[in-house]
């Protein structure tokens, strides 16, 4: 039985751990099923592909009711770091790779990784700020053009 989805295009606009992993797990999962996948990193999503920042992503403890931490507490110094540490520990138990290694796996698996041109300019970033595995910097129009076959889905995260 083969799926009708042939290509998954993800737009990652946030850089909280939970959002980055959601995109990465789905993009990797697609490749593992023989589905093409690509990720377009825009706005804060760009943090996930910046060499200096990618290992320092945090989970959001404020404005995240599912964390079951009162918003006031979630904003206290150290709470976000602690929650992040705990989450990373749980992920390691499940053999989930850290962000940097996950990006390597994705790239080796044939998942294309793109940075959004507008956001790159807005944050005054340069190509050297990004991981070596980055496939390039695209406009949103270029990215839409990647949806070049039947069975392509675009997902905004």
């Amino acid at each position, binding site marked *: *039985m083969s799926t009708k989805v042939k290509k998954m295009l993800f737009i990652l606009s946030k850089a909280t751990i939970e959002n980055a992993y959601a995109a990465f*797990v789905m993009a*990797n*999962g697609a*490749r*593992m*099923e*023989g589905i093409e996948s690509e990720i377009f990193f825009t706005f804060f999503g760009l943090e996930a592909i910046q060499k200096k920042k990618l290992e320092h992503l945090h989970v959001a403890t404020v404005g995240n009711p599912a964390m079951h931490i009162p918003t006031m507490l979630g904003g206290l110094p150290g709470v976000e770091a602690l929650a992040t540490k705990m989450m990373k520990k749980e992920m390691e138990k*499940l*053999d*989930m*790779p850290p962000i940097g*290694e996950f990006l*390597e*796996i994705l790239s*080796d*698996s*044939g998942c294309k990784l793109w940075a959004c041109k507008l956001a790159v300019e807005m944050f005054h970033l340069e190509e050297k700020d990004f991981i070596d595995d980055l496939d390039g910097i695209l406009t949103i129009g270029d990215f839409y053009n990647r949806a070049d076959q039947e069975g392509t889905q675009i997902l905004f995260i």
Partner: protein
Amino acid sequence: MKKLIANREIDVNEEGYLIDFKQWDREVCECIAGECNVVMTEKHWEVIEYLQDKHRKEEPLSIRGIKRSGVINIKEFYNLFPGGPLKKSTLIAGIPKPKSCI
């Protein structure tokens, strides 16, 4: 259910994965590989042996595990078993399909 593989009746599940590893041998393996459009080479056998060894030790399979295996890297793995490498390779190896999402 039963499936005729290499002129033998083999027990498989609804996705074609072998139920009883004892029924697996090189002949069965090559037949399943053929159905997946994979022509077995020395490197394929090496990977199959690695996967079966992991299965014997009851260690879960993941793409990260492949990266660390020392047997093959991820790019080669995708080239050897196109269209879902872990899914295809375990099918050919006669072991269950991995349940992990990573």
